[in-house]
């Protein structure tokens, strides 16, 4: 038995060393040029944009589908678009945002529908890369379950540091998913000029997961404690994806309606397929403006009602 453990130890030692070095090495040039790194700029916006602010929290449905200039001009608030990627999980997004909320802020949460279904509260490679590559100090924002689920992904993450393609050759990452494509508010604007690629509509198949609703309630409590306002709204969602998961989308809406102040409705933000860019949540420029104008109307109405 000792022999087995001795040889197993010797066999696994190089792996452990490679993994450790991989974690400690700085991000590769390829990794450092992805949209995940926009969160550095977004954190800086959260820190430095003066009051009174409109903080938009959610996944890439915000980053790729909002024109914050319109929001600023219409609502006279300073927008901060914090959206990066839905798979960063609501837990992480909310924990990160709450650190920066100030009195008088208007916090608008627009989660993707998938956030309310199983597995979207756990996180995957994107979250791991964010806490190990983008900003290691953010590890503290993860909960125990997330750490447990992310641990098996560490070896693959570490090995990417030793891939030659991460350092040399052409960057095949689509241009809109790179680091320097966001404007001063955090909106991704490069894709406004790009051609729409093909993508398949989504279908939500996972089971409902009530965890995130409770998490949002807790976030709301913390936001209100900081004398800021809290509103929930809906993402622009592709028609065919909506049809594929209509019952689930409407169930999410019903749950949210019971517990939060809502701006707009799920149906209102349904968007024709021709206005979608490369996922059911990313809009082309016309769609971005249309969606932003709807959001302006809904926020105006909700804020007026709150007063």
């Amino acid at each position, binding site marked *: 038995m000792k*022999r*087995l453990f001795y040889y197993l130890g010797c066999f696994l030692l190089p792996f452990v060393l490679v993994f450790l070095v991989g974690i400690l090495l700085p991000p590769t040039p390829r990794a450092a040029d992805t949209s995940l790194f926009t969160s550095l700029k977004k954190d800086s916006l959260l820190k430095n944009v003066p009051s009174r602010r409109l903080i938009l929290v959610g996944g890439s449905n915000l980053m790729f589908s909002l024109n914050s200039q319109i929001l600023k001009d219409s609502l006279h608030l300073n927008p901060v678009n914090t959206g990066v990627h839905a798979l960063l999980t609501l837990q992480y997004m909310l924990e990160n945002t709450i650190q920066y909320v100030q009195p008088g802020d208007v916090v608008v949460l627009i989660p993707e529908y998938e956030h309310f279904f199983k597995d979207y509260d756990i996180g995957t490679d994107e979250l791991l890369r964010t806490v190990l590559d983008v900003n290691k100090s953010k590890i503290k924002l993860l909960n125990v379950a997330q750490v447990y689920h992310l*641990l098996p992904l560490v*070896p693959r993450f570490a090995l990417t540091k030793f891939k030659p393609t991460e350092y040399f050759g052409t960057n095949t990452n689509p241009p809109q998913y790179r680091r320097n494509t966001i404007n001063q508010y955090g909106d991704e604007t490069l894709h406004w000029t790009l051609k729409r690629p093909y993508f*398949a509509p989504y279908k939500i198949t996972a089971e409902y997961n009530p965890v995130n609703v409770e998490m949002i309630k807790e976030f709301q409590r913390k936001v209100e404690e900081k004398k800021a306002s809290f509103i929930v709204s809906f993402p622009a969602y592709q028609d065919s994806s909506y049809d594929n998961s209509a019952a689930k989308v409407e169930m999410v809406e019903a749950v949210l309606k019971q517990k939060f102040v809502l701006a707009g409705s799920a149906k209102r933000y349904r968007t024709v397929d021709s206005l979608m860019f490369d996922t059911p949540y990313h809009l082309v420029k016309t769609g971005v403006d249309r969606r932003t104008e709807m959001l302006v109307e809904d926020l105006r109405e909700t804020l007026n009602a709150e007063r």
Partner: protein
Amino acid sequence: MLFNSFAFALFLPVVFLLYWRVTKTLQQQNILLLIASYFFYGCWDWRFLFLLAFSTFLDFFTGLKIMNASTKRNKQLWLWLSITINLGFLGFFKYYNFFVTSFAEAISNLGLHVNPWTLSVILPVGISFYTFHGLSYVFDIYRDRIKAERNFVEYALFVSFFPLLVAGPIERATHLLPQIKEPRKFDYTKMVDGLRQILWGLFKKIIIADQSAQYVNLIFSDPSSFSGSTLLLGAIFFAFQIYGDFSGYSDIALGTARLFGIELLRNFAYPYFSRDIAEFWRRWHISLSSWFRDYLYIPLGGSKGGTWMKVRNTFIIFLVSGFWHGANWTFIVWGALNAIYFMPLLLTNKNRDNLQIVAAGKTFPTFKELFSMLLTFGLTCFAWIFFRAKDMSHALAYIRHMFSRSLFSTPNFYSINDAKKTMLFILFFLIVEWIGREQPYAIAKIGGVKRRYIRWLSYYAIIWVIINYSTKEQTFIYFQF
């Protein structure tokens, strides 16, 4: 708890250490394995533990009753009680909705309308496997092949031993129970061999099956939007997905059991190198095929009667085998198709022509062997379409679109470039399997390489590929059966 999960990677070393370091006697080892097995099974849904415990107790009890029965009639009575309850549970959980809806459809064809009373029953994981374990045990007692077990812990471990609990191999009491009763000693070579087989199983599951699954799911989701050649490619990908998935699972199960000093029945023996369908069925899901042979085909008369009897019995076992996989007409058609493939061999007495592995002792097969293998693989792929389809209309639509003019075009779908990488993995996999085809599993030979650094470099390469190309943790296809 999946074999390819982080939870299992924590669970296995803990049980292994407790088993070899803490327990002192055989009794303690068996109790530990039994507790670990129930914990493992309870991780899916703790409610199913009651069903497993009941099924175990039922067969333990009826086994004793059969053995101690004074008359043949009493023996039969207890046997039928066990069969009825076992199949009753299986039927309820697995087939109730199928029978009710099929009956309602049949009635509606006669112009009558009934509202079928279906239930939203969750299928307990592994029920088909442990029910068959139990049934083989009582059948063997009934036929005086074995004596009934008097030690409940040992019998319960035979039924629930965690490596085989949820997807087999379907063990026999004659093979597994004696191993459970014998003291087991730590054997370094066996341990390393077990770990090596687990590694190969993980490669099959994570690289071959899970990678193929991405394209299978895409292509099968909407056959009408793909060319015939893409659909053909989808069927081939599925052939490798199901093989990688199930044989990968079996390799992990066998390797894991070996870590505890237990040898399980072999379940796969390079089925895609078969030269005819009869050989395929001697190499695919061996523990199920042999179960049906021993407990259904032979009791029905086997091949002893005339031609009609052979044909009838062959059709019965293939249809039942199809139905065992699930309550869907697609599985029954899959079974029937295989029976039809089998018929020419049976009627010309050629079903036992290819008993040895192809091209044994040679590097390459002959052209005739290669042609036979490709033909058998083609027939198998065609049958897999029914196995994978969600219903009959889906399968027929798939086949109709596949055999269109676009069958001769170049396959094309939006992730074709990623699929090419998977094809390379499959090619590599086939080469390794071909080289190792005379071994119990493809990379067993590496254990015989004298230089440690060569062995270790091979393992490092496999682990590197697994880590680098793993996708999201996916469940095993056979868990649904």
